[in-house]
Structures are given as structure tokens and as C-alpha cells.
């Protein structure tokens, strides 16, 4: 009897050490919210549909963290760079008047070369600021977003849904209606109910699941390839990597470029589900949510893999999705979800930062 209790307590201790207090709190909170949502009678089916869609539409942005962390640049707070490339791809695709699946595909194809170029420049910079990557990346991201805000105002775009009827610049949000709105979400969606997902009961967005799975698979293959293993070595132990003849800066740059490209694809997947391209200041803080997602899944500043992405995104986005109706039911306050997001995402990042050095 006591032995059993002992083994349980050691198991709990090892789990506690591995998961860390914040993750356990978040997990318990998530389960608690689920129970509350059932008790107060929120339609569970539609809620789960929302959770699945929200998690999947964010997952590639979170996945973009993996190559960054594995190659040793740490948490890629500069994700807005990739996001901007993706948005640029989307905008150009609309300007060239592509629609439907072609529009989505072209957006990705146009975005990737931009992302590669930007990623190389960004990787070059990060190779020169070793040890302070995260802080520099954050501000590179911020300044890129505000510089691109000027860009959005000056770009000569004329498609009617993008340009203001008068004055200069592109609209703040561009509707994807008639372009590639829900192109993945609605592909083989079943059961095909009406368009309104939130009240249609439980639905499976097959296209989104397939595409995200494909991207996860691509990352999985990269991680297991020769390049991926070299990248991991460089990230884990740069001195050992140098000794074994690996070009540390090259693999760090490779990781940065990958991260930027996945960020670009990620925002397009996000946008097709959200229904709008959000320009100007919207991408500013998207990097933080992605960082928080991967950390909640169990990654740290030195190590991340695909399971962390899947668990973390479902937990974090699920928490945010469920918190909203629950909060609205208990007391009519819309802001609780936003507050949860701020506290949870920044709390987990702070926790991860304290785990890096832990003093000296």
C-alpha cells in the first residue's frame, strides 16, 4: 500500500519535474474549463470544432518555431518577418487575380522566395548577435512590421478589394471572400452542414487536417534528414559541431530560413481560415503566440519537436477558444479571453526564460 503510494509520488515528482508547474496549471485549467463548459451547457460539438479549427490554423506558425529552436537561435521572436512575406504573397496573388485553390497555391509559391531571401538576411544578422538573438529578433520583428506598414501604404496595388476607394495604401484587413477564403477548411468538410461552423455541431475540416499533417510530415522528414540532424547538432552543441567539421553559421541560417518560410506558409493557412489578410500592425505580436504555443507543448529554448507543437497548439488555442464562451456565460465580460491569452502566453515564456540559465 505504502509502496504503491511511494511509486505514485515518485512518478508525480518526475512528471512534475519534466512538465514544470506552469504547464500543469495550464493543463488543469484547460480540463477545468472543459468541464465548466459542459456543465453550463455550451454545445460541446461545435466547441470542439472550433478548438480543432483554431488549433490547426495556428499550428504551422507554431511549427515554424521548431527549426529555429533546433538550430540554436532560440525562440524565434522574429516570426513577423516570415508572416510579412506570407502576407506579401497573399496580396500579390490577389493582385494577379488568382482565385480559389490556385490563389492559395500561388500565394504560397510567391511568398516562399521572399521568405528565403528575408530568412537569409535575418540569419546573417542572427549569426552576428549570438547570445542575444531573442532580444534582437524581437525588435527586428517590430521594426519590420512598422517598416512594412509604410510599405503597405506605398505599394501600387489596385485590386478593388485591397485598395481604398480614395487615398493611398492597402486596406487594413483584406477580405478573402471570393479568393481563397476557407479553401482548406471546406475541402472535404463533413458533415457538410451550413456555412456557419459555430452552430453546425461537430464537423471535421478534412482539407485543413490534411494540409497541416502534410506540413508536420515535411518537418518530420527534414528533422530526420542529414541536414536536420546536422542542424540539431549545431544547435545542441556548437563547439562539438565545429570540432566535427560542421559549419555552424550555415546550419543556423538554414534553421532561420526554414522558420521564416514556415512562418510565411503559416500565416496564409491562418488567413484562409480566418477569412481575412490582416496587414499593418496585426503581425506585431503574432510571434509571441507562436512562441508560447510551442513552449506550452513542452519545448524549451534548446529543444523542440513536432509532438510539442501538436500538444502545445491544442492546449493553448483550446484554452483560448473555450475561455471565451465560458467567461461570457459566467459574467458578461469579453475581455477574459484576451487576459487569459496575455497571462498564459507571457507567463510560459517567462518560465522558459528562467529555465535557460537559472542564475550562475
Amino acid at each position: 500500500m505504502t509502496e504503491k503510494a511511494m511509486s505514485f509520488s515518485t512518478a508525480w515528482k518526475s512528471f512534475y519535474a519534466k512538465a514544470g508547474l506552469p504547464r500543469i496549471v495550464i493543463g488543469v485549467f484547460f480540463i477545468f474549463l472543459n468541464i465548466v463548459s459542459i456543465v453550463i451547457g455550451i454545445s460541446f460539438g461545435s466547441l470542439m470544432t472550433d478548438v480543432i479549427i483554431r488549433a490547426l490554423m495556428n499550428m504551422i506558425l507554431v511549427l515554424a518555431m521548431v527549426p529555429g529552436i533546433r538550430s540554436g537561435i532560440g525562440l524565434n521572436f522574429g516570426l513577423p518577418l516570415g508572416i510579412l512575406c506570407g502576407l506579401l504573397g497573399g496580396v500579390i496573388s490577389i493582385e494577379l487575380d488568382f482565385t480559389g485553390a490556385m490563389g492559395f497555391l500561388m500565394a504560397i509559391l510567391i511568398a516562399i522566395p521572399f521568405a528565403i531571401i528575408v530568412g537569409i538576411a535575418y540569419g546573417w544578422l542572427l549569426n552576428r548577435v549570438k547570445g542575444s538573438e531573442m532580444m534582437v529578433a524581437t525588435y527586428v520583428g517590430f521594426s519590420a512590421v512598422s517598416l512594412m506598414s509604410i510599405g503597405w501604404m506605398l505599394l501600387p496595388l489596385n485590386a478593388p478589394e485591397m485598395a481604398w476607394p480614395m487615398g493611398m495604401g492597402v486596406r487594413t484587413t483584406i477580405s478573402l471572400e471570393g479568393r481563397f477564403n476557407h479553401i482548406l477548411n471546406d475541402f472535404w468538410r463533413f458533415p457538410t452542414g451550413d456555412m456557419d461552423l459555430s452552430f453546425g455541431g461537430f464537423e471535421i475540416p478534412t482539407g485543413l487536417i490534411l494540409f497541416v499533417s502534410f506540413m508536420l510530415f515535411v518537418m518530420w522528414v527534414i528533422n530526420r534528414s542529414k541536414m536536420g540532424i546536422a542542424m540539431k547538432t549545431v544547435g545542441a552543441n556548437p563547439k562539438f559541431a565545429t570540432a566535427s567539421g560542421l559549419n555552424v553559421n550555415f546550419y543556423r541560417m538554414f534553421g532561420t530560413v526554414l522558420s521564416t518560410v514556415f512562418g510565411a506558409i503559416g500565416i496564409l493557412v491562418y488567413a484562409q481560415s480566418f477569412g481575412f489578410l490582416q496587414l499593418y500592425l496585426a503581425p506585431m505580436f503574432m510571434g509571441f503566440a507562436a512562441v508560447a504555443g510551442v513552449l506550452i507543448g513542452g519545448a524549451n529554448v534548446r529543444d523542440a519537436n513536432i509532438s510539442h507543437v501538436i500538444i502545445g497548439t491544442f492546449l493553448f488555442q483550446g484554452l483560448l477558444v473555450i475561455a471565451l464562451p465560458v467567461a461570457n456565460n459566467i459574467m458578461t465580460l469579453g475581455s477574459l479571453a484576451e487576459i487569459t491569452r496575455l497571462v498564459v502566453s507571457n507567463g510560459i515564456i517567462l518560465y522558459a526564460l528562467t529555465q535557460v540559465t537559472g542564475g550562475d
Partner: protein
Amino acid sequence: MENNVTIDRGILDRKTKIKRFFVKNMVTIMFIILSYIGFHYSGLSVPFFMSELITRFARNGFLVLALIIPVMAGMGLNFAIVLGAMAGQMGIIMVVHWGITGVPGVLLCVLLSTPLAIIFGFLTGKLLNKTKGQEMITSLILGFFANGIYQFIFLILVGSVIPMVNEEMILSSGVGLRVTIALNDTIRYALDDVWRFSFIHTVLIATIIFLIIYAVKLYKMKKGETADAPTDKSKTYFNLGVVVALLAVTLGVMFSESRINDLQVPMITFAIIGVLCLFTYFLSKTKLGQDLRTVGQDRHIAKVSGINSDGIRVLAIVLSTLLAAYGQIIYLQNLGTLSTYGSHEQVGMFAIAALLIGGASVTKATIGQAVLGTILFHTLFIVSPLAGRNLFGDAQLGEYFRAFVAYGVIGLSLAMHAWKKYLQSKDELGM
């Protein structure tokens, strides 16, 4: 022949010196040029511009100065002054709720925010001691995190858990504070209005005081009483020249019909900023200031010489947070509206951008840099929307440009510092 060589070397020295001066102060010089261009295209009149600048300097100067002490302690730019600003706002919220007005209101704000700021600073310091080497990103994220907690308290707990009844401040649902709280009837201009004095006379008196100081210094040098290096002498001459030129301009303006003569200065606010300058200056001369710098330069040496480096670091952050709380009170009593959930958000970024524009870096920041930076940054703030509208036909463009400048200057300065550090570590390893 020998003479020639020495002369050549002298010229070369001067050339490299000038070059070094420009490289070192690149950011500041760039901003002076940028500010001038912006001012030119904004089409603003000098008196209007000056009055805006005086207001903005009085508003923000204190907050920028609050950043200096952590830099001395080697902790970089303290983005967590946001927490200090929150403490200041908490004091203001209580004072406005109780309806205490004028100078007593402000003093009560200070009294109430002091313990809060000390607690926040202490916790921040403890956290930063756990993340050595990553202090800046931690303080930045901590600001966001604290913002979440702050919103939770004032949007959800106030009115529901914390009893508070005040129709003007609480949302109609009875829970949560309104998004903006007007300070018009309570503490607006409480400090500024105590004593407003003619701007031009203030400048006149200041220049005369400086003139006397430099004249005495020069007189002593001539007599050879001080053992100053010749560079100091030329510096004094230069300063004296600047002061004389300023005096001439001041007198010129005084005898003209310019509207600059109508400008007024909130003397108490400026005096408080002046006191903080003196405090920071004298702090750096004390034993504590020495310890701060030792910890900033090398924690191991500090440890060997028996300094409790963790304690010093916490103290530096507590001081910075406390000053930020007071700075935010000064800021809001001038602004007159408390944006309950927004006033504190940008405080860290704007203060840091201002300090860096003044020529400071992650490891070195002086009072002069803080003052110059505040002036330049806010010049850009005043002129860029108008310049944007006049140059490109859109004021929004100027505002984006301003945001880009603030973020860009921080990013650039962080990157340059990190690059330097990286190169140094490479040198040490002999790679």
C-alpha cells in the same frame, strides 16, 4: 623635419578623433539631421514647436532618466519600467476615486505608489537574477505579463471582488474601470500649475549661471590651479562658446516680437527633473554607485571584492521601478487623461528609444544622453505626422515612420551591441 612629423601626427590625431566622434555619435547625429528635415517640412512655427517640446520634455524627461541606474548595474535597458508606471497609475486611480485634488492629490499618489513600486521592483529584480544574460527580453515579456495581471485586476476584479462604487470611473455594468479616466477635476496640472515662469527668462538665468561657472573654471585654469588635461580646456572653451551663443540668441529673442516670449515653463516639474539628474549624478559618485558599476562590469570581480551582486541588482531595479512610478504620475498629471489600459503600455519602449537616440547604449547611459535623447525623440514625435502629411499627403505615414524609428533604433542599437559583444568573446577565445 621632426617638427613636421609631429604636426602631421597632430593632424592625423585630430582627423581620427573627428572620425571617431562621428562614428560614436552616428545615431544622435542622424537624428539631429532627421529632426531638422522633419521640422522643415512640418511647416510648424518655432514658438509652437518650442511650446510643444517644453510640454513633452516636462512630461517624459523623468521616465527616461529612470532607465539610467539599471544600465549602470549592467542589466541593460529596463523594459520593466512598465511595472513602475502601473504602480503610479494604481496610485492615481485610488486618488481620483477618493476625489483628492491638487498638490495633496499628487503627493498622495506618490505615497500610495511607493510601496507598490518597491514590491514590483523587488519581484522584477528577483526574476531578472534568475535570467542573467537575458535581462532585457525577460523585462520586456514581464511587462506584457504584468499588463495581463493589471487588466485582470482593473477589468474583472474591481467591482466584483474588490468593492468599488464610482459611477464616473466604473463601467455601466458595475464591474471594471472605464477605458479612460479624466483627471481634469483632480490632479491635472497639479504640479505644472504651481509655478509657471517665463521660458525666455528661465533660459536667460540658466545661461548666465553657466556663463559664470565656465568663466570661473577658465580663470582657474589660466592660473593653473587645476591639473586638467588640455582636452578639458578646449572642451571648456567650446562649452563657453555655446553658452555665449545661446545668450546672444536669447537676448535677440527677448528684444524681438517673437511669440517665444509668451512661452511658460512649469518650473516645479522641471525642478523635479533637475533634482533627479542631481540624484543620479551624486549616486554615481557614492560607494553604492561604485558598487553598481563594479557589478555592471564584472559580477565575478564584484563577488571577489565582497559585493552582494544579486542584492545590488535588485536594488537597481527597485530604484528604477520607483522612479518610473513617479515619472508616470508626472506624465499623467500633465496629460490629463488616464487611459486605464493603455497609458503604461508604451512607456518602456518610448523611454528606451529616447535614451538610445541620445547616444546611450546597452552598457552606458548618461544624464546628458537622456536629456538630449528626450528632446530629439519628441521633436520627431511632434514633427513627423505633419511632415508625413506635407511630404506624402498622409499623416498616417508619418506616424508609421515614427513607430519604425522607435522600434528600429532599439533594434539597431541592440544588434550593434550584441555584435560587439560577440566579436569580443570571439577575440577572447582566440578564434
